[in-house]
């Protein structure tokens, strides 16, 4: 019996006959939660989101309620902005595309509610440049929402004004980093800002308090307000609430996007039961569980994690890769992260040197060049990996590679440094003999 999906965000997305226009959305109860929200105090809405324990779906898994609470309406005198981060570009992730293309009004409704809750009157959707169709669909959805007065002046007679505009990126991964995104939206190169002092909640867009939330997170807000924070928190696990869209790619029989309660299944169940197993009946070698920046997990390794047992006491458990529950805390406990939900599966035939060389080429291309350790280091990692992959190397090169990665992580303005280093560090920690074997082969020849 395969594990059933729990589709909250993608409830209608793939239903036959469901279209992205507003009439279809209204027929399915669309914008009724907005009506309810407009009749509620913004502070109450914020409180519901806090109670829901909703965590950000973009990568860091930061509490949405906490993020919102940094903006205190009592103290703040500047305008507040909200930006929807639709720059989906973490390799392995393709969930926002589904929402934008198939159910854009759900995103808008969640976004309008979030704006109302935080007293925002101007908001932007930053969508990656490579989604021209998605941008068109959203433009159309915005026009429809304006025509029905879900947007614009005096929304549904509530006295609340809001405008949302689309802003297209132009092919730079770093724009997914929230302060880089803000710089980009200000019309500059997307060099991330240093924190402190430039926390978006304090000095964000135009140096005003700014909330940046992922597409899936904003959709979740709609459901939180619809069912109430406490009811929402019952889905999934404590501190890992709600549903999560998992994007599976690589060597499985049925790659794709699936929505489950957070922690509702293990990595093994996802691969074998949901995705039909490893391709061609081959053996599993490794999994990257949360987008290409997350640390790789080796299939034959045992992981020790501390978790609450049935009696609520902490106990240490030993798990195999396939037993790891897919929630934020478990993936962090085994030394990786849930990240953006992009699960990349690799079978026994995959050459780990080649895989890491591919990943490093991505980061070398995408470094913004602002911080020296990253700008120089990612290119060195790429070059070293090409050399190792081609077999033109010595075993010392593997050590150099590791040391370059160690000297980037923690020494850059934004988390890109870690995103580029973690794959290198984790591939070497798990598969170092594969890398050294290349050098040995050269020496023997």
């Amino acid at each position, binding site marked *: 019996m395969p594990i059933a999906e729990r589709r909250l965000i993608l409830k209608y997305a793939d239903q036959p006959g469901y279209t992205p226009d507003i009439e279809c959305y209204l027929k399915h109860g669309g914008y009724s939660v907005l009506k309810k929200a407009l009749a509620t105090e913004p502070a109450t809405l914020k409180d519901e989101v806090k109670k829901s324990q909703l965590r950000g779906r973009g990568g860091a898994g930061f509490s949405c309620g906490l993020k919102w609470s940094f903006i205190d309406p009592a103290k703040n005198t500047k305008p507040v902005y909200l930006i929807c981060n639709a720059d*989906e*570009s*973490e*390799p*392995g*992730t*393709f969930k*926002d*595309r589904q929402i934008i293309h198939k159910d854009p009004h759900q995103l808008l409704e969640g976004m309008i509610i979030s704006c109302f809750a935080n007293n925002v009157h*101007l908001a932007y959707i930053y969508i*990656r*440049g*490579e*989604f*021209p*169709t998605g941008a068109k669909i959203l433009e159309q959805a915005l026009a429809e929402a304006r025509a029905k007065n879900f947007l614009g002046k005096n929304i549904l007679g509530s006295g609340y004004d809001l405008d949302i*505009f689309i*802003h*297209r*990126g*132009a*092919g*730079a*991964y770093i724009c997914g980093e929230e302060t880089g995104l803000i710089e*980009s*939206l*200000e*019309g*500059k*190169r*997307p060099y991330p800002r240093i924190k402190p002092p430039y926390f978006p909640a304090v000095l964000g867009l*135009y140096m005003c308090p700014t909330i940046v939330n992922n597409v899936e997170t904003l959709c979740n807000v709609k459901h939180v307000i619809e069912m109430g924070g406490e009811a929402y928190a019952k889905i999934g696990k404590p501190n890992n609430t709600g549903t999560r869209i998992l*994007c*599976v*790619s*690589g*060597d499985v029989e049925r*790659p*794709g*996007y699936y929505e489950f309660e957070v922690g509702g299944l293990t990595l093994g169940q996802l691969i074998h039961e949901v995705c039909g197993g490893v391709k061609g009946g081959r053996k599993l070698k490794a999994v*990257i569980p949360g987008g*290409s920046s997350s640390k790789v997990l080796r299939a034959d390794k045992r992981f020790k994690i501390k978790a609450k047992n049935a009696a609520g006491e902490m106990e240490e458990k030993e798990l195999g890769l396939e037993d790891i529950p897919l929630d934020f805390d478990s993936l962090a406990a085994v030394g990786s992260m849930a990240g953006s939900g*992009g699960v*990349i599966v*690799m079978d026994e035939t*995959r050459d780990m040197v080649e*895989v890491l060389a*591919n*990943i490093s*080429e*991505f980061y070398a*291309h*995408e470094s*913004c060049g602002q911080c020296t350790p990253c700008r120089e280091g990612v290119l060195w990692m790429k070059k070293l990996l090409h050399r190792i992959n081609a077999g033109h190397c010595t075993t010392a090169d593997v050590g150099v590679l590791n040391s370059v990665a160690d000297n980037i992580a923690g020494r850059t303005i934004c988390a890109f440094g870690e995103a580029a280093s973690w794959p290198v560090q984790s591939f070497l920690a798990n598969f170092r003999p594969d890398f050294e074997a290349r050098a040995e082969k050269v020496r023997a020849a």
Partner: protein
Amino acid sequence: MIESVPALPQDFLAQVDETVSHYPVSKRSAALPLLHLWQERFGFISQEAIDWIAARLELQPIHILELVTFYPMFRQRPFGKFHIRVCRTLSCALGGSYQTFAHFKKLTGATGDEHGPIDSPDGRFTVEFVECLASCGTPPVVMINNDFYEKVDANKVEELVRRCGE
């Protein structure tokens, strides 16, 4: 400055005004959207484009040029009628995108420095190996101009190139 540029079409200017109005706090925010508008209309970002957009937003040309040289999607030369983007990143690579890219090159005859977009000898095609296009579950993924294609294997490459010829 603006006066030295040949007259731009009225509908284009209207689009520009509409776009700038989306950024009531700072006109500079309209820089990226105006570059997109210009490139979609005129094919590439010329020096004229840089000067005109800078003047329209009351900026120095360097403020626009620094964007054009940073963001990979902007180009400073004309591309072929068909701009073929093949995803290079991990999931697509595992799914065979290197073969897909090689096949596009072979069928279009595109050659050159593969670290950037390369042209076919007849100039009709520009082929580019790009980073993640965010559809990792259906590799290899390809974009031809604004159209998006999934699971592009050798057969599909042939079909797509043939269709471009029709």
